[in-house]
């Protein structure tokens, strides 16, 4: 029971928003002794040819320096030499598909040792599984490359700080990351200085950052799931990004955020599910961002807003079951809240226009206190906190500069947000059911016995 607490503690100490800079040295052709038995076939292949690989285990690294299509049949396993990347792509227009790749936990972070390391344009990596590798698949200056339907599992038992990213994209203009699944790495998807990309249908879970992102403009994120990150999702110093229909869920670490923007401008986030996070949305120094039609639910704090943020709009979102709707750092904000639904809003809609008749106050005295004093969180879920909030709603003088939703919806809107994929299936817990049944029985026993005894006694003495 204490394990998650310890884990969160550990992670909290080990993390930071440090930017991972790309290494300057590029891994070259490995020494002959370390090369894969497949290497002679690559070396012999004519550009544009197809190399078919049969099922089996091939130990050693593979260096691809010409435009070939490497196709695995029956999932051949490439086991690395243990000293660096397993597959190195050094020519344009390479396709690798249908392989299982084991990095043997070899190489090191500084050399970007990966399952598949691509440093050439227009590569396509498809249907590969990478495990035990520091980085999963690394795109370095690989303009126009695509990674699809791959699965990355990190090195088991290593601390997040010693692992690399699942999918790492650096200095790549135009890239596609489609329908990949990434588990147990440091950062699920890492994107730096890489514009014009599409990230769609990926799942990144049980890791530190689901998405770690900076200096990258004009990218699109659709239908991804970023789940159970100790830190969550962080974007910095970027512009013109679109988030549609993604899920940012179960990011429950101490400083975890569903979606964090720091110095990010002109972002549109639409129809996303941002649920069960320590903090739902975090905005610092960001401008002209729009959030509409999202479901932000079950967070400790739905929105953390720094007053360095400007010209941001929240409209038509649904805020459900959050401990606190808003934590404002600083004294005021020009952020516009309108037409959102807030589950904490109990103000009636008497004129029947679908909006409560009074604005909904997002800031509260209690939130102000907890902004200055973290320990105040400990009583945030007490009757007292509710009482303070109620008193404030009744006596507005207590909070002189309120942040309000001017026209809060009186009913939750129907949103086009994704449903959570993991809980979509009904799971049963037979032990839980059994224990509950036993509990019910034990609880009912004294009441049943209380009735019975009278009858038994009268019977005995009749």
């Amino acid at each position, binding site marked *: *029971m*204490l394990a*998650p*607490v*310890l884990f969160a*503690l550990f992670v*909290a100490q080990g993390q930071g928003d440090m930017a991972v800079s790309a290494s300057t040295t590029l891994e070259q052709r490995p020494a002959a002794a370390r090369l894969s038995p497949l290497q002679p076939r690559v070396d012999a292949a004519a550009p544009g040819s197809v190399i078919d690989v049969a099922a089996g285990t091939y130990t050693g690294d593979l260096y691809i320096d010409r435009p070939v299509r490497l196709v695995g049949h029956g999932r051949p396993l490439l086991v690395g030499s243990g000293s660096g990347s397993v597959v190195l792509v050094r020519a344009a227009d390479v396709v690798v598909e249908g392989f299982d790749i084991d990095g043997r936990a070899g190489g090191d972070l500084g050399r970007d040792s990966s399952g598949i390391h691509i440093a050439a344009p227009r590569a396509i990596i498809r249907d590969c599984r990478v495990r035990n590798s520091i980085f999963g698949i690394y795109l370095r200056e690989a303009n126009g490359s695509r990674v699809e339907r791959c699965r990355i599992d990190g090195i088991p038992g290593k601390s997040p700080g010693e692992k690399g990213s699942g999918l790492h994209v650096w200095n790549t203009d135009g890239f596609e990351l489609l329908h990949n699944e990434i588990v147990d790495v440091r950062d699920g998807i890492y994107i730096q200085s890489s514009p014009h990309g599409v990230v769609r249908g990926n799942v990144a879970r049980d890791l530190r950052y689901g998405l770690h992102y900076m200096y990258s403009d004009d990218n699109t994120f659709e239908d991804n799931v970023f789940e159970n990150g100790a830190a969550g999702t962080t974007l910095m110093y970027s512009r013109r990004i679109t988030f549609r229909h993604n899920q940012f869920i179960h990011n*429950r670490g*101490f*400083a*975890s955020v569903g979606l964090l923007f720091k110095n990010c401008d002109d972002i549109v986030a639409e129809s996303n*599910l941002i*649920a*069960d996070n*320590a903090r739902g949305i975090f905005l610092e120094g960001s401008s002209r961002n729009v959030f509409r039609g999202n479901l932000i*639910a*079950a967070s*400790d*704090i739905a929105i953390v807003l720094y007053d360095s943020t400007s010209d941001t709009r929240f409209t038509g979102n649904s805020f*459900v*079951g959050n401990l606190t709707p808003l934590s404002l750092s600083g004294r005021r904000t020009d952020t516009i809240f309108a037409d959102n639904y807030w589950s904490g809003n109990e103000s009636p809609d008497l004129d029947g226009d679908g909006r409560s008749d009074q604005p909904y106050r997002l800031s509260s005295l*209690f939130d102000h206190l907890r902004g*200055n*004093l*973290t*320990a*105040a*969180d*400990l*009583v945030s*879920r*007490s*009757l*007292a906190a509710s*009482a*303070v909030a109620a008193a404030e709603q009744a006596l507005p003088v207590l909070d002189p500069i309120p942040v309000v939703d001017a026209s809060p919806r009186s009913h*939750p809107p129907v949103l086009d947000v994704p*449903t*959570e994929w993991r*809980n*979509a299936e009904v*799971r*049963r*817990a*037979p*032990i*839980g*059911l059994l*224990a*509950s049944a036993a*509990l*019910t029985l*034990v*609880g009912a*026993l*004294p*009441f049943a*016995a*209380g*009735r019975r005894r009278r009858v038994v006694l009268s019977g005995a003495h009749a």
Partner: protein
Amino acid sequence: MAGESVRTLILCARQEMLLAARSRWTQLFAVVFAGLSLAVASSGYILSGGSGLQDFARTAASLVQLVLLLVPLTSLVMGVLALTPERGGAEILYAQPIARPILLLGTLIGLFEALVAAEALGFGVAGLVIFARTGSDGLAGFAMVAAGSAVLTAVFLAIAALVSVGQHGRKRVRALAIALVTWFALALLFDVAVLAAASLLRSGHASRLLISSVLVNPIDAVRTASLLAIEGTGAFGAGSLALLRFTGGPGGAALLIALSLSLWIVVPTWTAMRRLARMDIA
């Protein structure tokens, strides 16, 4: 001698449990608690629009809030009603050749068993709903909430014993009033006062005050322990870490909370027993 005391304890406990099981108030509590637990367990699903969004932790956290609201008040009121007998009820009992503290303790145990049974009924019904559609991951957390509920019952029965001692006959109303004030103070006023004081202090002192108050107040202590167990440090965001730093880690926090709650059970019970042993049944 010790064996005889144990036998007497069991006898009193059984008698009280029988009585409590037949009491409309206990039955009402059992029904209300089961109903609300069921509502909480089901609404976890309903609130999410059937998307399963409210997973186990959220449902369990709502159960904790239900427990914190209902159990202390019920335990206090039921305790006072049972421990302030009508005129002539106390005399014939205390004139028996049995030490009064044993009679009191037996009664408390019986009440505890009956109330915990009512709570178990509620948890069982809620659990059937919860575990029919969430995995068994939450089992430990669920057990923790149930245990927290039992501990709160014991704490507030102990307080009820202290409040009720010697308040039989017409003084029952007075004891009830004191019990309600005590509940209000612990459930609400205490935290409000601490928050007010914290807002006036410098942050270091304020933090220490808040953290200690959460450990000292039994309702806060159970809430803190249950939610931390269910949700991990996410339960109170940064506050969780402040608490764990202050207590020297999860083990320290668990120890301090256990100590605080044990004292809340033992000290009022022991004081009530002592006072009852010495007082005149006039």
